[in-house]
């Protein structure tokens, strides 16, 4: 170690800067993690309020609150904001906070680029949201923006939508490169890949998925841009193109995207369940292999979203079989979690409650996904509320619950204070009930024949829609409680110990609570080898 390095090392003895500039200029992974998490929560509220507009309109048959054009804008923006603004940044935020602490790294590998990845997002979403106020309104063609509705028939704001997607893509790619490099290059000496906590594993694989598919999304929106402004014929049969081409390219991105939103969740749950079952995670190796298999399979199943577009039968069969296969590695994960709980010594603090609810409700969502994979049946399910029920089960009590579980689990480490357990449990039960009341009835509405993206519906769907809307408001408002709990915990509370949870394993529990601004400036010595 040379003297020069020592000189530039003095910042390690400093704490964070003061004021706003701390957040704007920071290169610290914890600060950036915090920024991501708050940003994501803000987007969750915005996207959630749009969902509430949708649910309020659907409370009863008839057009009460909004006109159909605006309803479509709400659906579109809700989907986009939840996917790209809420869930993805939340997981990137968790990765920022946790990956360096879990692998004993001093920070993320490329700290300035890390800050860049984050600060692109507010601009991107600012631009996306500003389309709501443009002439002709915001994008109204669904978050899947199928051509030609999104090209020839789109409002002018589509141009800004396209560029917003480009920005999000750039941000995600840089963020993921950072994660991959950190994990591959900055592990504490002696930590082998198969020693890494599962959260790190799942993120390694997620980052790989992101780097592979975000450019494809950029490619497809670029083709749109060219069709709109430069007269190309990618999605127009009149010039020898094909609207279905759009769907193929989109879903080549889109399907891996949904696993991008669930793999880190698997990692979170795999950290929490063993802690509160006081038992080692069952089948670590098979968890890793299952994650990798899911990621691999996710690249070759995309057209299960397109069973009704009139693909040749060979394509339909192939995509059906490939999709069904995903149930196998996912099942392995579910069974491993159950086996971890089995014969454990469980307690049910808030993170554990969210994690268990995750396992059950995600599985319900996964099973309905499997039903959707069966082509002839999907002809009846496709584009109905059955699909909406499916993906909200995997996304809301799936991804979102896992994020909340993670927040409760690591908040004491982040803030140094315990959150209020009673309020936490209340939040859980309200959310649990709310989510099921909202989305379970949507299975029925869907099977009974209500299509999605409808601002109004026939009378026979009225009852369950009403129930669903009530549930949505219960779930939505309980999130205010979550906000309150987090703020309360940040402000103060019972001091957390360093280990926080008895029996929690991993490097992050060996450092102080709250985690010091800089951790592991010198790599930690690893505890005795876990697997061998």
């Amino acid at each position: 170690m040379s003297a020069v390095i020592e000189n530039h090392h003095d910042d390690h003895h400093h704490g964070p800067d003061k004021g706003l500039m701390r957040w704007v200029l920071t290169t610290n992974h914890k600060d950036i993690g915090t920024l991501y998490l708050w940003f994501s929560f803000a987007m969750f509220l915005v996207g959630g309020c749009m969902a509430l507009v949708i649910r309020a309109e659907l409370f009863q048959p008839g057009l009460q609150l909004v006109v159909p054009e605006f309803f479509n804008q709400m659906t579109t923006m809700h989907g986009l904001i939840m996917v790209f603004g809420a869930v993805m940044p939340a997981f990137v935020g968790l990765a920022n906070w946790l990956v360096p602490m879990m692998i004993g790294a001093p920070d993320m590998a490329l700290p300035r680029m890390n800050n860049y990845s984050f600060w692109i997002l507010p601009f991107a979403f600012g631009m996306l949201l500003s389309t709501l106020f443009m002439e002709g309104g915001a994008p109204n063609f669904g978050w899947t923006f199928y051509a030609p509705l999104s090209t020839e028939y789109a409002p002018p704001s589509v141009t800004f939508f396209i560029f917003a997607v480009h920005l999000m893509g750039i941000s995600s790619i840089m963020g993921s490169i950072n994660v991959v490099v950190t994990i591959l290059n900055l592990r504490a000496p002696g930590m082998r890949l198969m020693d890494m906590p599962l959260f790190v594993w799942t993120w390694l694989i997620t980052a790989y998925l992101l780097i592979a598919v975000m450019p494809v999304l950029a490619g497809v929106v670029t083709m749109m841009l060219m069709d709109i402004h430069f007269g190309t014929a990618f999605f127009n049969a009149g010039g020898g193109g094909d609207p279905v081409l759009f769907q193929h390219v989109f879903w080549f991105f889109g399907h891996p995207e949904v696993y991008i939103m669930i793999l880190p969740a698997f990692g979170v749950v795999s950290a929490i369940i063993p802690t509160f079952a006081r038992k080692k995670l069952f089948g670590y190796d098979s968890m890793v292999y299952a994650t990798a298999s899911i990621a691999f399979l996710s690249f070759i199943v995309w057209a299960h979203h397109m069973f009704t577009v009139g693909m040749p039968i060979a394509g339909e069969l192939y995509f059906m079989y490939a999709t069904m296969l995903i149930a196998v590695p996912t099942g392995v994960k579910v069974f491993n979690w159950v086996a971890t709980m089995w014969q454990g010594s469980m307690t049910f603090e808030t993170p554990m409650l969210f994690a268990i609810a995750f396992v059950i409700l995600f599985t319900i969502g996964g099973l309905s996904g499997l039903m959707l994979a069966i082509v002839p049946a999907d002809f009846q399910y496709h584009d109905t509320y059955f699909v909406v029920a499916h993906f909200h089960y995997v996304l809301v009590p799936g991804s979102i619950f896992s994020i909340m579980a993670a927040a409760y689990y690591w908040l004491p480490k982040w803030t140094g204070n315990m959150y209020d357990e009673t309020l936490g449990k209340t939040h859980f039960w309200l959310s649990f009930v709310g989510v099921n009341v909202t989305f379970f009835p949507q299975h029925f509405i869907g099977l009974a024949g209500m299509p999605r993206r409808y601002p109004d519906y026939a009378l026979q769907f009225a009852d369950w829609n009403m129930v669903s809307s009530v549930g949505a408001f219960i779930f939505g408002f309980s999130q205010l409680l979550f906000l309150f709990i987090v703020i309360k915990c940040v402000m103060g509370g019972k001091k957390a110990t360093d280990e926080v949870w008895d029996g929690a394993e991993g490097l992050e529990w060996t450092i102080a609570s709250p985690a010091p601004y800089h951790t592991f400036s010198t790599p930690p010595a690893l505890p005795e080898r876990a697997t061998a």
Partner: protein
Amino acid sequence: MTGTEKRDQGRSGYLIGLKWLIAAIAVGSSWSVLADWSALNMTQGVTEISREVYDLHMLIFGICVLIGVIVFGIMIWSMLVHRKSLGHEPATFSHSTKLEYAWTIIPIFILIGMAVPATSTLRDMYDSSNADIDIEVRGYQWKWQYTYLNDDPAQEVKFMSSLLTPPDEFYNRAPKREHYLSDVDNPLVIPINKRVRFLITSNDVIHSWWVPDFAVKKDAIPGFVHESWAVVEEPGIYRGKCTELCGKDHGFMPIVVKAVEQDEYENWLAMKQQEAKDVYETVGKTWSMAELMETGETVYAQHCQTCHQANGQGIPPAFPSLVGQGMAIGDLDAHVDIVVNGKAGSAMQAFAAQLNPAEIAAVVTYERNAWGNDVGDLVQPREVNALIVAKE
């Protein structure tokens, strides 16, 4: 804690577990008795295929429920019994090769069990050969056009089918009647027990033609034609929906299919063919301004209003206003032309395919003289017809 105490605690844990299980089963079963399942489940439909699909659905649903019950049962049991508060000590195992193999391989067999019937049903659905009747189904923003294909084009029957529910009902100004949002002006009519092939395409954006009772759902993609078919076994009225987001009135373009006996179908077809002939007689005569305005108003309400709005103001910039500006008060030829030929790459369709020359003449005249446009000129059906013929 002594050994016996621990065992007692363990046993009380099991008892609690059992109690909960029984309670859960009780609640679950009473609920299923209360609910009216047919309103909550997929329809069985009225074709052989739709019943096959229903059976397939029930099969995979049953399997999923079974898996759910087993997995959640074990989890819940474990949650109730293996808890710290009951003094349960954690075991130390963390893998079991045998188990892990088992739960990788068994699911594969379950999946094969689902894939086999799915494959055979799909094969049946994809075999659209030997059709008795070919009908072209064409999606428009936001209505359907049906064409009964015939080797002799003069015999072809072609009509539009759009929503019948008046806006007053969806804006809550009138009570909602039965079949709210599910009724159309001209239903598709098909004979029972005949193999009807649908050739599905679109004029503008992607729509999707779904009739649940036939288990037919196929996307209508502009520039492409996809096939589907049905043999309907029972006469009746079957309702469906557009299931691909196609713009603002995606929720307002229902499908109604009327399946009738063969002779009734033939009568209906003959009547339609006659109607088409009659129309051309009216084209020859000279229409008065009042006649044109009166017909024009109805045509406008039926065909133009969704986009250009009842007051002609449109929803700019997506749908231009026709009041006091542009073609509606400008060049008559251009005005007729855009209604006849539409504007490529925009929602403005070529109405020559949907309206007869008299209707087009009427609606153009109406637009030029309504809402204070008061241009004062009119166009005769025969002039419009000449234009259409010249183009062909």
